[in-house]
Each structure stands twice: as C-alpha cells, then as structure tokens.
C-alpha cells in the first residue's frame, strides 16, 4: 500500500501558545484564524482541601475545572497547527507548563490599558528561555494610544523580543502576527 503525505496515520501536529492576562483577547485572536469554532478543554484541578466538617463526597468540593481554548489551522496535507490560549488564571502555572511544552513558539498578548497584567506572562517565557516569543499589543480601540517604544520600555522588553500591534478580531492581523512569530523563531535558530 502506497502511503502519501495525506495518509491520516502519518498526520503531524504542532502548537503555538497564545498567552496573556484574562480578557486580553486570546480567545478572540484564536477564533479570528481558526478553521474550527474555538473549543475548550478542561483540566481537573485540585483545590484546597475541604473543611473538616464537610462530609460531602461530591467531586466538586475538591476539584475545580480550568478551561483552555484552542483552535486549529491546516498548514498542509500532513501538518495541522493548533493554537492554544492559556487559562485565564495565572496561578495555574503547571498548566502553562503543560501547554508550553513542545510549543513551536508563543505570543504574549497585551492590553495597553493594563500592561501590568501582562508581566507574569512575559516573565514566564523569559524565565523558560526555550520558547521563542513575541509580544503583540491588541488594539482594542483600533488604534495605538501609545508609542510602541513606551510600551516596550514599560514592559522592560528585551530588544531581541519583537513587539507589534494587531486587532485580535482581524484575521489578516492575526495571520501576520503568526507569520512574524515564525520568522522570529527562524531567526533564533543557530546558524550553520
């Protein structure tokens, strides 16, 4: 039996992480380019132990669910790219680890109205150091209200990290942000 690149059993996948604070536009960004409606997976999280007087055995008492959104883009016949939005709650860092592991690259979305909310996400990828990332300002009102240099300074972004703008609702903007991300990842590869 001849196998071709489109043989389903040979299908390959890769992922990109879309990170950022709650409400920064991650789901909107993924939905703008995904070929499937943005889906949500849930992970069961242990929460603080139930109080001693709680005799309930209900599962809901000891776990909570955290959603992460994802969308999908067919790269070619044999390769599908998945975009995963980080869970809104920054405290679930091990879920970030789960998502980031093996990722091609990551985008940290920021909102200039609350830059501080993006610090943990930027610090996370800086600290890892193994995943190429860019920072993208989501243009909520359709225009940049601050010079990018000011934003870069306020974020104390390393000069090597690209900083651009996008409208998370705009498919072409999202596509361009992803292309810029991949070009950045290519630039970081050791030359030979």
């Amino acid at each position, binding site marked *: 039996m001849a196998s071709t690149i489109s043989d389903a059993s040979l299908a390959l996948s890769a992922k990109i992480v879309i990170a950022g604070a709650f409400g920064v536009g991650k789901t909107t960004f993924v939905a703008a380019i995904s070929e499937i409606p943005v889906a949500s997976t849930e992970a069961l999280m242990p929460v603080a132990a139930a109080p001693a007087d709680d005799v309930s055995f209900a599962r809901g008492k000891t776990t909570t669910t955290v959603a992460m959104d994802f969308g999908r*883009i067919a790269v070619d016949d044999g390769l599908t790219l998945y975009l995963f939005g980080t869970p809104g709650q920054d405290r679930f860092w091990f879920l970030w680890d*789960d998502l980031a592991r093996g990722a091609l690259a990551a985008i940290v979305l920021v909102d200039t109205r609350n830059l501080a909310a993006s610090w943990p996400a930027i610090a996370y990828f800086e600290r890892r150091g193994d995943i*190429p990332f860019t920072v993208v300002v989501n243009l909520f009102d359709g225009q940049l209200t601050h010079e990018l240099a000011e934003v870069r300074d306020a974020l104390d972004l390393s000069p090597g990290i690209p900083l651009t703008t996008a409208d998370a609702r705009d498919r072409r903007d999202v596509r361009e942000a992803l*292309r810029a991300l991949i070009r950045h990842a290519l630039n970081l590869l050791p030359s030979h």
Partner: protein
Amino acid sequence: MTRTYALHAPRRPSRVRPYGITRGRTAADRFLGVERLISTVEFDPQRVLGMLPETAAVYEACRYPRTIAELATGLALPLGVIRVLVGDLAAVGRVRIHPPAADIPDRHLLERVLRGLDNL
C-alpha cells in the same frame, strides 16, 4: 504627530535576561502534549464490547486522528483522564500516538508552517 498620552503603567521590575533559545529544550519524551495526535490501530468493532465506555469512546473517536485536546473536548472528559485512557490503549497497541512534528522545532518545520500561513 503629537502624543498627548502618558503611559501610566509602572515599569516592570527585573527582567530575566534571556539565554540560549535551545538550552533546556529536551527531546520529546513520553509526555503527551495537548496537541499530540492519536489514531486507532485497525479499528475492530468487536473490541469495543469488552471496553469500558470511556475507553471505547476514545478507541472509536480515534478512527480519525485526534489530538489529546480534541478528545477532551469531544468526549467532555478532563485532559488527565484522556491521557490515562490513551496511555492504556497505546500500551496494548489499540491506538497509536503520533510522533511530534519535530522533537525540537527545526528550520524545516518552521518554514513549512510559514508556507502554510502564507497560503491561508
């Protein structure tokens, strides 16, 4: 153009200096990433009869390759449960865990993704 705005956000303290981009990157291991594709090996409806419902659901769903994340969504089960079910099925050869597109993202893979994005 005059800028009337001042950025009122405080400056983020203490940047961690980035280090080599491949340092710390480990080859793909047995960890099942949310993006990993799973497909059923030679689907046989007879086998479903002896399976627990959740196991059977994964076995049937993966007649077409699906990711761990898609299985969790489609079957409304937590990721951790899906990973256990897939691990059990893979251990007895009922499903195949596709390799990652690359152990470490390389030029070939990134260029392939870039071409795909160009063609969107």
